[in-house]
């Protein structure tokens, strides 16, 4: 952790009007859960569609994508990363600092609202709200690490990330069961299932598989991003 890098990253990520734009994500989640609360439908189904499908399935990946690539890809894109790289600072420290900022932002803008939305829709019972919130915490952190790596590795980080988050996890995952084993969303759901009471949350991946995969992917992505940044070549836009 380097406080100066962290401060600059936060300013780059949330400065100007960008922080307000990111606020759209929690706002959408809270508004829809308030509306759903008044609808009188089955609370458990509502929680599954709002918390599982909307929050964990869509908002957390998109936010992780914006934040994970936003902390570093924008700087690489406009070339201002060289001023940071030329400082006597280990490259891996730049990565870990930026990752910490990304994870904290994802938690504040996605996991916390998920908890609130869960409390609004379902109430504190059965550990459902907490379960989904913990799921959002772990998957948000892994998404941040993964998309940070993408941001360092390719100039088309956002498109590649979207392809993974939407095409692989939603489209392919709906038809091919095996694809679900390799999905951050399912790993998060698996952790959520173990936190909540029995039978409240469904997941296709066992906890024993999910936890090592979560940790492994996060660590591997961070290491790979550090290595990649250590030998970064700046290329101009095509």
């Amino acid at each position: 952790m380097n406080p100066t890098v962290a401060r600059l990253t936060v300013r780059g990520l949330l400065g100007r009007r960008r922080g307000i734009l990111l606020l759209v994500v929690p706002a959408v989640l809270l508004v829809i859960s308030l509306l759903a609360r008044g609808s009188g439908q089955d609370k458990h189904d509502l929680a599954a569609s709002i918390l599982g499908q909307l929050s964990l399935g869509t908002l957390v990946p998109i936010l992780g994508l914006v934040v994970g690539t936003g902390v570093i890809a924008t700087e690489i894109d406009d070339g201002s990363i060289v001023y940071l790289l030329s400082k006597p600072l280990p490259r891996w420290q730049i990565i870990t600092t930026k990752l910490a900022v990304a994870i904290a932002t994802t938690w504040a803008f996605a996991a916390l609202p998920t908890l609130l939305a869960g409390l609004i829709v379902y109430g504190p019972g059965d550990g459902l709200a907490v379960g989904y919130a913990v799921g959002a915490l772990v998957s948000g952190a892994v998404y941040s690490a993964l998309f940070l790596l993408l941001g360092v590795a390719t100039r088309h980080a956002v498109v590649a990330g979207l392809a993974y988050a939407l095409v692989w996890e939603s489209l392919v995952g709906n038809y091919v069961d095996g694809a679900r084993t390799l999905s951050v969303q399912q790993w998060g759901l698996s952790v959520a299932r173990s936190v909540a009471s029995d039978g409240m949350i469904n997941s296709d991946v066992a906890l024993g598989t999910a936890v090592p995969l979560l940790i492994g992917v996060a660590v591997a992505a961070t290491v790979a991003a550090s290595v990649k940044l250590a030998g970064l070549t700046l290329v101009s836009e095509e």
Partner: protein
Amino acid sequence: MSLPPEPRTAPDSGVIHNIGYRGYQGPRLGRSYATRSLFVQSLRGAYGLGRSGKSKVLPMLILGGLGAIALMIVTATLIAKQQKLLMDYTAFLSTFGLLITIFLAAQAPVLMSRDLRHNTVPLYFSRPITRGDYVRAKFAAMTAAMLILMVTPLLVLYIGAVLGKLPFGTNTEHFLYALVAAVLYAVLFAAIALLIAAATPRRGFGVAAIMGVLVVSNILATIAFGINGGFEGRDSANWVALLSPQMLVESVVNRTFGLGGDGAVIHAPSTFAAVVFGVEIVTIAVLCYVSLLRRYRKI
């Protein structure tokens, strides 16, 4: 034009001849030609033509992927000896809407954001084209790119169906329905995406924002559909299509052409609703276009 007088030259030493400044006297191609060129360039740019190999990957992959899926549907239909395509033309567009949205999200910033980022927009305006021409050319290019993307697989389906001796009349009719849907999708989506792209000079941010708006609105509408009992067959739940651009087009088309009235497919619940949805499509498209013009008023 009067040339400046020929300067006196020394007879026997090396000289520089001043022939004066000569302006271009030939024909000029004018504003419409420039606008047309910008349109062609942007359309080619949307598919990565004339750009590096890397930028061709995504658009070509999606175009090829959609074509391949259409081919598979036709083949499967013919092998199974069905009298009807396994997936109708309009259903094809809505089922694979995600791929179309990804193409849109990835390529709209290519058209708009790069010019803003690198401050090349003022250079365009130093040519005869006006701000309106610029917006018109970009809008037309994005719409055309989307149309090419959607019509190509539809053509594959249609040609396959006709060659496979499926009923000609029904297929032509449904193909035309899908063409109408494709035009609506193209215009509405292009308007929304270009506005967002023009508001975000950073390419990555623009991609995520377009994707966010289109996908999240779709999921919100689906959830609202469920909350209002749409899955239990309550017809009024179809009003949630107001929330999502994709569902708007889908439900108007389904209602107007009497497709998928069995409740499983989203459709406008009444003629009045269809009119409301239609008005909303036009309003969104026009509002986005006007905002786009306003965005470029001060560059």
